[in-house]
């Protein structure tokens, strides 16, 4: 039931996207993927933020996968109790469904939209808890973060809360980037694990065959 709705929504969204952007033409890969695809395919490989994980060790790392691999990117924050851990758990669950030779070709990156609370230490602990192969992007440069979000079509906003702290609101898509920095597909919140897994598998197989 809800699957059908998601699929219907995806189709509708796809149609709207084309209509809204006046796009058409170049209908590249996009074959048989359940997640949303965009036309033209966005290029995010030029985006570079400090990765405080074991790969970057605090140095800037471009948002593209290693050769032949895929990079799954999520914008969120570590003190988010519901949406972010659910999404990361779903991605983890999806990766577990892949055969080892495919699973080891997927790296997961989380970009914090709350660098104030998400220190480098918090980010390492948080992202490292979920994945074996990961990046933890963290910048205190708000403009750099905004540019990165813009490239992906992500967004967030921070507003003061009644309790004296602040609330973080954020877009909740999960993005897949290839080794050329192309944003190939994105999944909305609560995408079933089997569909995430299938999309990754489809892209990895295409990549192997070409």
């Amino acid at each position, binding site marked *: 039931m809800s699957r059908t709705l998601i699929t219907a929504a995806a189709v509708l969204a796809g149609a709207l996207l084309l209509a*809204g952007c006046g796009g058409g033409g170049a209908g590249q890969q996009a074959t048989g993927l359940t997640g949303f695809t965009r036309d033209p395919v966005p290029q995010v490989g030029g985006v570079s933020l400090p990765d405080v994980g074991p790969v970057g060790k605090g140095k800037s790392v471009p948002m593209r996968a290693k050769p032949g691999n895929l990079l799954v990117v999520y914008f969120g924050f570590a003190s988010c*109790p519901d949406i972010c851990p659910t999404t990361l758990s779903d991605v983890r669950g999806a990766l577990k469904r892949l055969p080892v030779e495919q699973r080891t070709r997927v790296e997961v990156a989380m970009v914090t939209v709350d660098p104030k*609370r998400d220190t480098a230490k918090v980010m390492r602990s948080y992202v490292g808890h979920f994945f074996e192969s990961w990046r933890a992007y963290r910048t205190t440069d708000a403009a750099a973060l905004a540019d990165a979000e813009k490239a992906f079509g992500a967004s967030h906003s921070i507003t003061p809360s009644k309790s004296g702290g602040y609330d973080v609101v954020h877009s909740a898509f999960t993005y897949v980037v290839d080794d050329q920095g192309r944003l190939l597909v994105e999944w909305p*919140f609560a995408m079933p694990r089997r569909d995430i897994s299938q999309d990754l598998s489809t892209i990895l197989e295409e990549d192997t065959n070409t």
Partner: protein
Amino acid sequence: MTTITRRAITTIAIAATTAGGAATAVAHGDMPASTSPTPSTMAKAGKATKANITVSKAVVRMVPPGSANTAAYMNIRSKGMPDRLLRASVPKSFAMKTELHRSMMVDGQMKMVQQKSIAIPRNGTRVLKMGSFHLMIMGLTGNLVAGKRIRITLTFQKAGRVMVSAPIMEM
């Protein structure tokens, strides 16, 4: 322009997802397949009954070391009259405070909105689940240990206080 279009699309997609999920949840008391804990771990989930209220499948989400917050999920069934969940709490030794929250999509962004109360329908089940209604447990005092049970005290308008022992589970 692109941003606006994207947001509109996102809203449509999530609205559809949420509508489907909510309808299913109220009718059957199920979590979406993608986010349910596995059946084997589900067996140990917390359960409690008092007056017309039955709480089942109560779990606390395992979060990485150093996390400030977590969430608890459960099914709350009312046999007979509707009721209303007014408050929830956990021992101070576990976390500073607990609030009732609902995750929802607003203008293409996921937002958590604090709830004054959560209605439990007449002869029906309210499902506290991922991406929807949940208990937000804030200010964790230490790192969580999977399998450890947390006593959650729920206060209902009619049924009064209901205690449930919920295991911390990796989801």
